[in-house]
């Protein structure tokens, strides 16, 4: 049985078909990077994995069971922005998941469980290089540090899937490279299953173990909404020649103008 099974998933908005017949499976520890023109349904797909949207047809199974129809602790998420809580320090942000777990009633941990959560959170901050900023509020951190914090916060509860929605889109190139090292290190060390949306196909190739390209295969000029995007490439990264990369790149840039705004 595969870890995640995406079973003939369609997504419509009204009569607009966004995603058509996604059908594939994903094993534990795979790092899937998703690229595609804007408006092709990458984020819709991520939202279905997250649980904020449901497939119109078909289903998504996690370890053989359908995904819950709302976000839960099986799935961690890092957005491009607003992923951390502005009213909590770095340490409190990371401790939060454990505190919520320990005290279902008020969401604050006390005594020994608090001390344990604190130790664990400090370890986590150490791993992402934020130990010196443990007592700072997010607004005092740079964009890159905030994303590090968001990753640490997501990982402490050990989600089965980690979803990254263009997490480095707003960062400078230099900081981005640091973040790549961090994510790759954590992924290998904890054998995480990651889905990451990116605009940067090079980033997708560098980070992923598997690259998905979302694109519309069929376009009916009379009815632009009639067909949705599919996974047009499903490439095991590392076993692919660089020419495929160029091929996808030209393909994508060609289809972009064809997309309705």
């Amino acid at each position: 049985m595969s870890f995640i099974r995406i079973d003939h998933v369609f997504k419509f908005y009204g009569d607009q078909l966004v995603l058509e017949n996604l059908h594939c499976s994903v094993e534990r520890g795979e790092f899937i990077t998703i690229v595609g023109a804007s408006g092709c349904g990458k984020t819709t797909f991520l939202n279905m994995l997250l649980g904020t949207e449901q497939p119109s047809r078909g289903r998504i199974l996690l370890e053989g069971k359908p995904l819950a129809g709302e976000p839960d602790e099986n799935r961690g998420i890092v957005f491009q922005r607003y992923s951390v809580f502005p009213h909590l320090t770095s340490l409190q942000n990371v401790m939060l998941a454990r505190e919520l777990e320990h005290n279902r009633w008020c969401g604050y941990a006390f005594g020994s469980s608090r001390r344990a959560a604190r130790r664990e959170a400090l370890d986590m901050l150490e791993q992402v290089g934020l130990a010196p900023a443990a007592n700072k509020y997010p607004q005092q951190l740079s964009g890159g540090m905030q994303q590090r914090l968001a990753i640490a916060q997501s990982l402490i509860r050990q989600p089965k899937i980690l979803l990254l929605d263009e997490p480095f889109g707003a960062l400078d190139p230099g900081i981005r490279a640091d973040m790549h090292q961090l994510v790759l290190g954590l992924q290998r060390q904890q054998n995480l299953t990651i889905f990451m949306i990116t605009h940067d196909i090079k980033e997708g190739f560098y980070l992923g173990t598997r690259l998905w390209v979302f694109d519309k295969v069929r376009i009916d000029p009379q009815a632009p909404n009639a067909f949705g995007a599919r996974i047009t490439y499903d490439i095991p990264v590392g076993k692919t020649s660089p020419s495929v990369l160029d091929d996808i790149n030209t393909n994508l840039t060609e289809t972009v103008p064809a997309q309705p705004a």
Partner: protein
Amino acid sequence: MKKLINQHPGKAGRWFLGLLPFLLIALIYAGASNARLAENPNDKLLPAFASFVEAIDRLAFEPSKRSGDYLFWQDTLSSLKRLGMGVGISAAIGLTFGIVNGIIPYARANLSPLVTAISLIPPMAILPVLFIVFGLGELSKVVLIIIGITPFLIRDMQQRVLEIPGEQLIKAQTLGANTWQIILRVVLPQVLPRLLDAVRLSLGAAWLFLIAAEAIAATDGLGYRIFLVRRYLSMDVILPYVAWITLLAFVIDYVLRFVSRRAFPWFHPAKGADS
């Protein structure tokens, strides 16, 4: 020469410029008062500053001949008690319903139209109803303040809750939070400083309702005293009382801002605009 929009006064300059209008008003008043008193020493309209001191001295530091109370402090205490109760209860209701309306779609669908409708009722128009229902005691005055400012507070709090980015609520759920935990750990701490802001904004209205209620039915209070001595054209009491009310309003506002800065450092960026 820099453009006008790029020229900033220094610290001393700011103080001077800020105080200047106050000084000017005091000077103009003193001039006008002198002119009138020179013509008619018994003029009551623009009393001299000495009369203010005398009136306040009489009210604040000598027991009243009739009741033995120090009227000035008695009035201040009564008014502040009513104001504090009214605003405090309103803030509690506003916070509770604002959060519930903001975070739970079913509650919002159910209560939001009602709150909007109530907020459109002019509170002064139902003051007689309050006097009839709650009598002429303390309760009706406090209730007038509550009715006057609570709908605003509820709607403002609801809006602040809705402004919390959806990403945060999703994130909290992926960290395993249930609805109650999200309210307690994500929503409540983030709207508390905004509640203080909303309370600061609503204080002006609260004073208005307080003084209106005291003017109509009370036996003490700042508003009561002003309207009482109006019969004797006692400007020497009215004007210091108005100044005192203004000072109290300023101090309350300042204290709330101070509390917000102390309690919610994350809400006030280190070098932000003065709110």
